[in-house]
């Protein structure tokens, strides 16, 4: 396949919510449960199924450095036993009704997802297990010990991979001591040190109803949806919960690191903290990035690195907006002896773009894709659920999707140039090359 990297795909999913032409408004309903959770719901009668997610402000950003991995572990252990249900009971009961039961952990959010049939007894059984897991996690000590061993093994394995070494070098350089720079799965040492008490305390502090967002789409009436939202949040820890994410202080200067690795390719990453969800420059930066490196084969970085020079299979840039300043990232992988050339091409492409911005024609094409492609962002329940979860969690207006189209449409080349000039200083980028050009490195020595 000739596609974008996973990172790009992830960035698209999280970064854009897309636009709504008048003919495609999504009838989003929203309310609050008695327990204080926010609910966003779309009634979709086409298929006899329900997609449900419950997210909390309990992502990896709520870790402390000495307990990095705690948020991920807490989320992962929810399904390890709850109430009177053992880990196997939970798996069996969900599997018996064909339900898909998953977890979600990202920088800001942690939660659970459920996809189930809405026929009975399937719906009732799936919701019973889901609710028990959410509200009565047991965090059994023996499962914790087992999963610590597994996770430490997985982290050690990942630490042999260039992409992991890259992100674990780049993020601390971008974020310093800010939690956005912590490794979300933790280090072998921090994971080994986690105790059951840590998990229980993290759950009590962060998995409160008032920190929860319930998103739902499926074959339900509003009344049924209300009942489900009440049920899944009623027994959550009470109170407001505690913990917030500090403001990011971006690094004042750029930096470059090269790390040796035996792989045949160098993995190159550049980044800096830039974009908040509610940032006034959101649209100019987002639309501009489509032209720069977010628009797949239509983007300048892909054109320069891949199409014109054949230097990489994947070369991209993206903004990952978060509650606080999320990263602007550029990256590629290339044969070692080409790493310096490819990096120079990316830098030159970025610098040219920051200086001059997109052409009018490029902006037109970007708008055509983002606005014209809007229907593809909401053409399945799964995609709509992801949008609902973001709208709810980040307190975006229910008209966000409609507003998005209008905002993209209004964006000008001058706004993009202005926003990039102010917000993306190439001299302040952190650059990491894992598996650098050994010949060049040796020559420099």
């Amino acid at each position, binding site marked *: 396949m000739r596609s974008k990297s996973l990172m790009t795909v992830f960035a698209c999913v999280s970064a854009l919510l897309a636009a709504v032409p008048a003919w495609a408004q999504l009838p989003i309903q929203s309310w609050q449960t008695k327990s204080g959770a926010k609910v966003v719901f779309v009634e979709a009668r086409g298929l006899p199924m329900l997609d449900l997610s419950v997210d909390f402000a309990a992502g990896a950003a709520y870790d402390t450095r000495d307990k990095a991995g705690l948020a991920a572990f807490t989320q992962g252990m929810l399904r390890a036993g709850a109430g009177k249900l053992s880990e196997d009971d939970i798996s069996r009961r969900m599997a018996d009704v064909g339900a898909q039961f998953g977890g979600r952990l990202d920088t800001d959010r942690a939660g659970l997802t459920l996809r189930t049939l809405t026929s009975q007894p399937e719906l009732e059984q799936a919701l019973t297990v889901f609710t028990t897991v959410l509200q009565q996690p047991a965090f059994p000590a023996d499962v914790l010990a087992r999963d610590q061993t597994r996770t430490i093994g997985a982290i050690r*394995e990942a630490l042999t991979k260039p992409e992991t070494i890259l992100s674990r070098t780049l993020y601390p350089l971008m974020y310093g001591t800010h939690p956005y720079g912590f490794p979300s799965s933790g280090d072998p040492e921090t994971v080994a040190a986690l105790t059951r008490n840590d998990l229980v305390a993290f759950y009590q502090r962060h998995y409160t109803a008032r920190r929860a967002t319930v998103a739902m789409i499926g074959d339900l009436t509003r009344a049924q949806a209300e009942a489900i939202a009440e049920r899944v949040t009623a027994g959550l820890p009470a109170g407001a919960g505690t913990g917030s994410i500090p403001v990011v202080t971006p690094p004042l200067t750029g930096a470059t690191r090269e790390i040796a690795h035996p792989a045949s390719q160098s993995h190159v990453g550049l980044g800096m903290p830039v974009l908040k969800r509610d940032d006034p420059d959101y649209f100019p930066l987002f639309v501009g990035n489509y032209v720069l490196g977010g628009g797949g084969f239509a983007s300048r970085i892909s054109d320069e690195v891949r199409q014109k020079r054949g230097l990489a*299979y994947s070369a991209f840039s993206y903004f990952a907006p978060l509650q606080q300043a999320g990263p602007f990232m550029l990256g590629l992988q290339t044969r070692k002896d080409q790493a310096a050339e490819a990096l120079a091409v990316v830098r030159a492409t970025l610098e040219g773009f920051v200086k001059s911005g997109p052409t009018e024609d490029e902006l037109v094409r970007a708008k055509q894709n983002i606005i014209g492609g809007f229907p*593809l962002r909401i053409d399945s329940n799964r995609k709509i659920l992801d949008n609902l979860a973001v709208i709810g969690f980040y307190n975006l207006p229910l008209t966000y999707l409609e507003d998005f189209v209008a905002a993209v449409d209004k964006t000008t080349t001058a706004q993009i140039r202005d926003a990039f000039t102010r917000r993306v200083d190439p001299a302040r980028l952190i650059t990491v090359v894992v598996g650098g050009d050994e010949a060049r490195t040796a020559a420099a020595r």
Partner: protein
Amino acid sequence: MISLIHRYARAAVAACVLLAGAASANPVESTLANGLRVIVREDHRAPTVVAMVWYRAGSIDEVNGTTGVAHVLEHMMFKGTKTVPPGEYSRIIAAAGGRDNAMTSRDFTAYHAQLHKSQLELALRLEADRMANLQLTDEEFTKEIKVVMEERRLRTDDRANALLFEQLMSAALTANPYRTPVIGWMDDLVNMKPQDARDWYNTWYAPNNAVLVVVGDVVPKEVFALAQKYFGPVAMKTLPVRKPQLEPVQTAQRRVIVKAPAELPSVLMVWPVPVIRDPATDREPYALEVLGGILDGNGAARLPSKLVREDKIATSVGASYDSTVRGPGLFYLSGTPVAGRSASDIELALKRELQRVAEEGVSEEELKRVKAQVMAAQVFQRDSMFFQGMQIGTLEMAGISHKTVDLQLERLRSVTAPEVQAVARKYFNDDRLTVATLDPQPLSAVKPAAPSAGVRHAQ
């Protein structure tokens, strides 16, 4: 999206993969005079459409010395026609608000575009154009073959588990082209010529070797008319005779070891098994699908439940089987031990689980659970137009009509516990087994690390 579809890598939700999305008799089919088959499935839940052109030309059709050419041609299909300049295909689709991509597997190469329904005609026009008018220039080939080599480095050469799978296949099979990697051997890529890609295109890219699948908010007779308008003029070709290339019988166990940078060892095992050739009369492939589901098809399946959770000896385990393929049938088991356990511990434990099915059979509860998964997945899959199209296309490429989906579902539901036990007994003996083991190498031992004196520190 999957590029090179390495079947093994797919989670072994065997049964669900096969059947998800069956349901209605909605897809309708028509064949143009030039042999192009057009299959349309209506889905009016959203105003979008996916258009896919599937060519029955995958790595199984390649010959030695030019392995990877099916996939290289996939890349070249974006490099221009007589009327569309190189790279313009993707720009046109993007400017129409669309997303496009392509994938190459052992069995097929497929191209797809997802768009608003009003743009279907554009997508079909461009697909028909590149079916007949590809301009495969030396200049574009020279650049793109480098991209493919980077793709191989990224996805295979620098990935221990991908190397392990590659070596497993070339040990397990001797005659059938399933033994070579879809992306091709690096040396074949290095030595590939533009003419190799042209020959591939001229041989296999023909309407009578393709299936057009359209799923979405469309009216079938309008799609048929558009297909006639754009694909109708494309000339059919005489296709080469395809040889069966059946494997000789394996007489003893085969073993291969791969050394690569990694922390944990892992093991991959494969046995030859039958696949569906006649959906109505075959029985064993359905039993094998259920066996795959019982071992690793859901959260309560035997392998994760026993080896990961109860015995705590594995960090991950898997079972995989695909009953609808063109080539030989293969049933895989895989596992990675926890630190302190060896690959052979996992190998023995995985075999013990098969042995347990062979000796003690499976419970009605497990059977019911697998079938519940299948039935639910069938509903869930209808949430995605793309996956509905994937199901139709992959079946057709395997030579199995999409019209047999309901029949296959019915057959799967009729599988009994004794049938599952019988296939577990019959096919998994040690003389038919091939094992690949990853011997993990510390990073520092693979090559001397570059000295830190060469690292430039800013600030």
